[in-house]
């Protein structure tokens, strides 16, 4: 045997062993190797959802079934308008339109059918329900209440009942809305300061033909809801369009088209902020790189960042409480000592304190003669900046100005500490007729909460900019029953307002979303004096048996734990 053939035989035996060995196992054990887990990283641009499938009217249905089928067809109208048309007579079809606000009724509605009469060809059926909300054409969701009644005229045809007269607009149940709409936060830019995004809450209908990300961004290109009209701007020039949204391994690529200039980067940062927050805050594209193209050319890339300058309030961890007129620091562990300067000294007659944001905060307090301001520095002294004996508690705006409403003169006053001047700000006329108890500017510098009388909270916005700034877009947020009193309000964040109501039966603390009026009750054990909040921190002071305690709401929003057991006082967070 030659050397070559010996080598060949050895190779053949080795190959046979390897092949034979691996042939016996279906999956041979091997590794370790790098596992590619990029696939499916990040969340999809769409979320699963379910839809109502409308079915055409069936010949065997009576009047009630027909009305219920019609209502179901309205719920599916945006997906398939043809079915709804099948419920209508040709005349009604010609007259009816889906345009206008969407009426949302409670699920349990009643269809009142009169006793059938042979002689009449048509039947008038009444739909009775409790109205729950209205979705306006600007996509804002306004909860309302009260009973709702609407007549429908039905005609009996050989193929079954058909509706011959139908009020315009869609009628949906709460379940329909929960199924087909998603509460969505859109982010616009504060018009006056241009440094802060302002949230606008809308209800967007899910579209089967496009991703939710596309639905959100397409809505973002449109103007904000009425509540923010004139108060915010958008960095998208008019005429911008979403060409496509693609999802890569670790990035989302958005292709825009329109008048955006790829060389002009002045709006690039705000545009990134708007898109990033409008997607991320709605649980889309979280933690993913967002690449923005304009007509296919790279415009900008936004990388996920835990610190978002566009929603930063420059407040840090600072919290305060007021004990006998002296402002104290509040740390995580409890009292942090009095602040430096005059504000840290005990003083009678100073109440309703407010702290500004920034590295050198100012403290404002209401006195019997007006509003005084002091610096949080050793040399800081109280200085009265606004005079008046019927002023609302002071509130700081994020631009550094101090605001109060002069109930006596019916004027909204703005004090600018840099110029040392007080300017009146234009307010809607109807405000003159009302008693303003509280006036609070949110930390975004746009939203304003106003309590009028004892029972009503209205939400407005600071529209315009510079000298043209005015209070506008006032809308009712909540009312309480007569006899109850709104004791305190506090901005928790840009969209949630805490409302402390003192009623005859006791106190209630509600957290209300100013965008869609969604209300969450916070359980109370003690009687609260005042409340202050900043994002997930909620503080309140409780006076019982002469001892003032400072309480903090736990993370689960269910229980209150004492932060300072004695010598506590009204809590304070900067702004809000």
């Amino acid at each position: 045997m030659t050397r070559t053939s010996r080598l060949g035989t050895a190779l053949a035996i080795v190959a046979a062993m390897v092949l034979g060995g691996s042939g016996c196992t279906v999956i041979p054990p091997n590794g370790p190797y790098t596992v590619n887990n990029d696939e499916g990283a990040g969340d999809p641009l769409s979320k699963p959802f379910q839809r109502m499938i409308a079915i055409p009217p069936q010949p065997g249905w009576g009047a009630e079934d027909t009305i219920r089928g019609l209502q179901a067809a309205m719920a599916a109208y945006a997906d398939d308008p043809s079915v709804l048309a099948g419920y209508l007579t040709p005349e009604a079809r010609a007259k009816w339109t889906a345009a206008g606000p969407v009426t949302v009724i409670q699920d349990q509605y009643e269809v009142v059918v009169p006793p059938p009469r042979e002689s009449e060809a048509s039947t008038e059926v009444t739909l009775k329900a409790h109205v729950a909300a209205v979705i306006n054409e600007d996509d804002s969701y306004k909860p309302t209440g009260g009973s709702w009644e609407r007549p429908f005229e039905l005609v009996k045809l050989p193929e079954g009942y058909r509706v011959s007269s139908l009020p315009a607009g869609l009628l949906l149940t709460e379940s329909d809305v929960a199924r087909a709409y998603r509460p969505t936060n859109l982010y616009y830019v504060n018009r006056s300061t241009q440094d802060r995004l302002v949230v606008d809450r809308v209800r967007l209908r899910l579209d089967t033909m496009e991703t939710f990300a596309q639905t959100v961004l397409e809505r973002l290109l449109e103007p904000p809801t009425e509540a923010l009209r004139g108060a915010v701007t958008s960095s998208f020039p008019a005429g911008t369009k979403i060409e496509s949204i693609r999802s890569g391994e670790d990035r989302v690529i958005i292709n825009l088209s329109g008048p955006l200039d790829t060389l002009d980067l002045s709006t690039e940062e705000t545009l990134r902020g708007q898109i990033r927050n409008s997607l991320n805050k709605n649980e889309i594209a979280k933690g993913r790189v967002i690449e923005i193209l304009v007509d296919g050319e790279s415009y900008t890339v936004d990388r996920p960042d835990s610190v978002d300058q566009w929603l930063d309030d420059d407040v840090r961890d600072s919290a305060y409480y007021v004990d006998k007129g002296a402002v104290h620091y509040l740390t995580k562990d409890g009292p942090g000592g009095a602040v430096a300067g005059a504000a840290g000294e005990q003083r009678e007659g100073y109440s309703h304190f407010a702290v500004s944001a920034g590295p050198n905060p100012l403290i404002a307090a209401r006195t019997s003669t007006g509003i005084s301001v002091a610096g949080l520095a050793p040399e800081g002294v109280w200085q009265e900046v606004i005079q008046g004996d019927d002023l609302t508690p002071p509130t700081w705006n994020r631009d550094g100005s101090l605001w109060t409403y002069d109930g006596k003169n019916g004027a909204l006053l703005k004090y600018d500490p840099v110029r040392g001047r007080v300017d009146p700000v234009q307010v809607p006329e109807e405000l003159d007729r009302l008693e303003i108890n509280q006036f609070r500017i949110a930390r975004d510098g746009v939203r304003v909460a106003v309590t009028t009388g004892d029972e009503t909270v209205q939400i407005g916005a600071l529209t315009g900019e510079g000298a043209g700034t005015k209070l506008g877009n006032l809308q009712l947020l909540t009312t309480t029953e007569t006899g109850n009193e709104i004791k305190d309000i506090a901005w928790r964040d840009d969209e949630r307002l805490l409302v402390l109501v003192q009623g005859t039966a006791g106190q209630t603390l509600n957290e209300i979303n100013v965008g869609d009026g969604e209300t969450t009750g916070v359980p109370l054990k003690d009687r609260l004096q005042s409340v202050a909040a900043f994002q997930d921190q909620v503080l309140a002071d409780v006076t019982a048996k002469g001892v003032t305690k400072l309480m903090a709401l736990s993370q689960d929003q269910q229980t209150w734990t004492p932060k300072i057991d004695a010598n506590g006082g009204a809590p304070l967070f900067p702004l809000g």
Partner: protein
Amino acid sequence: MPPTKKRSRRRTLRQILGGVRRRVRRAAGRTRSVWRRSLQLQVVTSTLVISVIVVVVLGTFLFGQINKSVVDSSQRTAASEAFADRLQIADALTPETDDPAKQADGAEQGAGNLLDEVMDTITGSGENGSEKRYEVLILNLTTPGQSRASGSVVPADVPLTLRLALQRNIRVYKWEAATGSIQTIRFGGESQPRLTYVVGGIVHLPTNGRTYEVYHFFPFDEEEELLSNVRLAIVVVGLGLVLLLAAIAYLVARQVVTPVRLARQAAERLASGRLDERLKVRGEDDLARLANSFNEMAANLALKIHQLEELSQVQRQFVSDVSHELRTPLTTVRMAADLLYDAREDFEPMAARSAELMQAQLERFESMLADLLEISRYDAGAATLDLEPVDIRDVVLRAIGDSEALAERHGTRFELRLPNEPCVAEIDNRRVERILRNLLFNAIEHGEGRDIVVTVGADRDAVAVAVRDHGIGLKPGEDTMVFDRFWRADPSRARTIGGTGLGLAISREDAGLHGGWLQAWGQPGEGSQFRLTLPRNAGVDLKGSPLSLVPPEIEMRRTWRTSMTPVLLPASGDGAEHDED
């Protein structure tokens, strides 16, 4: 190049088709010949064909098995998921029996909410739901507001057959039966249709009599992709395997065929006379033993041939010597015989007749001796040509002139068919005239007094002379034997004109010396024809003859029978083939 006229195009088309057909036929012929000649090609092709069949059968079986198991398991998973969902739906929609008040109160409106809740759970569209890989459609055509779908599924996406099957089940109260269907469905908002496994089942609530059709849409595009990858892999591996087997077959066949081919080449060379050809012997295997045997055979053959050559040489030398030695006494005998012949009139009639006979036989003896000497010159390779350009017509005329006396004696007439143009060729005048004379004498002798046709033909390369008689002709096989030395068609027949029996043999040697052919054709009762073909330029190989070997009238009469038998001179094989052209 589009032709302008329709007619000419049609002709061109026909020509093209004809050309194509010819080319195809030629290529097929070439392939067939290559196939027949190459053992290696046969082995490789057979292996290729068999392995293709095996691979196709195995691949089909394998893919079928994989396909079945993948699709089956996916279908099973899908069906069980769909079943679990249907159970969940049925469970969720069944009103709580222990709370009749609530049931009565909210049965109508609550069902919608319950349906929403269960849909949220099974489609993952709830608060913390995760996206499911399938879509669900619930249809209730009898109760308003009781139909739901996830994703972009619409009732029209349900395959009609499935829908009908489900409705049939509803009609016969088969609530548990589930039906599946694999279809390519194009969902709304998607550009491409997707392979989808649709499972349809029924949820029937006995408490309120409601019946829901529940359809689950499971995308099967992943399975499809997997299977198409598997199929691609099988095809690629199969193709590789086939090529590998072909390569192996090629190598193995080469190992066997190469020595065989070398042996064949050696045998061919041996056959062409190179007796020193031997094979290389490598190793001790069967092929090596074949080579050894071949070499032994070649050595023995060479020895035998050498012995025979020597023997033949001795014989030829003997003939030559005898002829030479006989000449001297023959000259003396001849001189004496001449004297006797001249004085024969003085003898008695008996003696005079003997003198005449002796004279005649002596002449014949002399010419026989001359022929023997001539032929021994050929055998010794001493024959040379004296070439000059000559018009072959003149040579023919001279030969006919020489033969006329004999022809007259036999009552035979010549019919000459000569071309008008001169037919000049480089030939040895004397030898060609001798050939022609031989042919003419031969024709006169066997022509039985009938006409002899002499035809001369010429083309660019060759000149030819055909001598046709209408005598008794030749029997099959005799057309080659006529050129043998001392051959006689009928041994009992006497030679009338005193031929030596060597004339045609010498003529063939003469023709061969010119590089030409001398061929015979004959049929019993049809006479015979001898054709001499010579190249126009000496030393040029003949490719064909200007004249046909078979007389034209016979050819025309019996065109269906190929009775032509070429008579071989050294290049006779080629000549015969070209005759047919």
